[in-house]
């Protein structure tokens, strides 16, 4: 009898107490407090950015540029490997260790083919196509710790990385994307909201055509026959047994590749994706079909 009253009473009390919410919890002990950027008399004069110049305006010059001086890296008369350095393609690296970490923390879905879009979507890869970034360079750090069967598409990979992925029963492809396609892959939502048809991927420039057509680099333009030969050759070189793809339960996933003209998995050039209506519009005009198939 008494205990029931107590429960009733305590329940009433509990109901009248405020609920736990973001507004009434304390920060974790030792959590970081950022200094406030004030606008007042003293706390808000330069905001720690210094007085005048690049520092204050936060418009830093490009690396090595000395405001019109003969730059140091050009002062020596013959350094041919610096020629055109500011026009060259860059491939920001991501290591196998990081990829493994992304997989382990469920930021990448390995039941689907992985490409640059899914890695950018993980939020842990900084990628700026407007700064001449042309995609992912998969590096071999953590090569011994890597243990996942994946179908991955990157833009640059070393032999060791290829061996590490194939040893675990995975598949790797190196593929070229022109900058416009990279913008699309970086932020597909933004592109779909412009209501344009998906464009075609352009062909690689002449200086990398060898890379993307060679079977030992697993180029996307290489002959699949030769690629399977190279897979075997690499397994013999590094001394591991090549897992059989044909008997794999994810055989279909591992065999999935993009067309050389295709940008997104499952979406063909010429299609319009509408996110609001959740529909895909496909062209039926002969001329359009011909254009997007060329």
């Amino acid at each position, binding site marked *: 009898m008494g205990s029931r009253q107590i429960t009733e009473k305590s329940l009433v009390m509990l*109901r*009248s*107490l*405020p*609920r736990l919410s973001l507004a009434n919890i304390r920060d974790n002990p030792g959590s970081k407090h950022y200094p406030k950027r004030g606008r007042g008399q003293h706390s808000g004069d330069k905001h720690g950015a210094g007085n005048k110049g690049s520092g204050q305006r936060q418009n830093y010059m490009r690396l090595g540029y000395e405001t019109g001086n003969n730059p140091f890296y050009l002062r020596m008369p013959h350094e041919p490997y610096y020629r055109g350095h500011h026009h060259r393609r860059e491939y920001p690296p991501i290591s196998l260790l990081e990829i493994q970490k992304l997989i382990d923390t469920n930021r990448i879905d390995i039941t689907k083919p992985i490409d640059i879009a899914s890695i950018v979507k993980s939020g842990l890869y900084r990628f700026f196509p407007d700064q001449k970034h042309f995609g992912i360079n998969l590096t071999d750090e953590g090569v011994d710790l890597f243990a996942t069967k994946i179908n991955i598409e990157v833009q640059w990979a070393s032999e060791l990385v290829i061996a590490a992925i194939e040893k675990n029963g995975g598949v790797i492809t190196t593929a070229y994307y022109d900058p416009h396609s990279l913008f699309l892959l970086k932020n597909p939502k933004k592109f*779909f*909201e*412009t*209501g*344009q*048809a998906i464009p075609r991927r*352009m*062909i690689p420039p*002449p200086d990398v*055509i*060898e890379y993307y*057509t060679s079977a030992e680099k697993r180029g996307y*333009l290489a002959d699949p026959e030769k690629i399977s030969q190279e897979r075997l050759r690499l397994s013999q070189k590094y001394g591991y047994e090549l897992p059989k793809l044909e008997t794999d339960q994810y055989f279909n996933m591992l065999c999935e590749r993009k067309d050389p003209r295709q940008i997104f998995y499952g979406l063909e050039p*010429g299609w*319009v994706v*509408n*996110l*609001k*209506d959740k529909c895909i*519009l496909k*062209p039926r*005009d002969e*001329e*359009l079909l011909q*254009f997007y198939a060329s």
Partner: protein
Amino acid sequence: MNICVRTKFIRSSLVSSLHRLSTTVPEIEQNDQVLIDDTEEFQAREAEVKKKRNKSRLSAAHFNLVNDRRPYEEPHCLAHLTVKYNRKMYGKYGVASGVNPSLCWPSRKEIEEKKEYEAVAFPYTIRQVMDAAAEKRREEQLRIEQRDIEVATKVAKLEQWKKELNDKVAKKAAEVQAAKQKKERLVEEVRRHFGFTLDPRDERFIEMLAKREKEQKKLEKQAKMEAKEKMMIAKLQQKNVELSEKS
């Protein structure tokens, strides 16, 4: 026409405002359906209520934006007449935007322009570019091989050339040494002639040296002549012998 509306959704805002301050869970209402009449009068009243409920003070366009609707139904500026803007409206608001989706694809003219651009930007096919790259690689390989052969032939001759050079240097050094010794000998002789050490810059010394040199040259010449004569005699003798043998 009559519409079925769930009472819960109509009164939900009212109920929530009543229950906002209390912490107890509002009792769950029954989801029974009621019939609401849909006359013009009623609609006008609803519109009035809706207008009065909108206390946001937002402009019509902003209010639309906030409620995920197209901001303007009527074009307000020139930009609203462009294809790009209309595509954007379709991409963002879908069919509800009222834009014809056929706008999303490029027109015939745009396709032509794109094709023209691509013909200039990518003049070669992948096969052609591949062949050109292979050709370039082959040429480079050939150049390297030729240079290798050139270097190899030169390295093969290197020992011989080194020997020749060393011989030449040694010969020159020997000549210089011989000339020096000869000069020293002459100076020594002159000194011995005078019987005491004389300054080599002295006039007498120089005179004597010249004289000695002359004598030396004369002697050498004579020796040469004698050697020549001897050779001649030897030759003649040999000839005589040959003649005698023949006869």
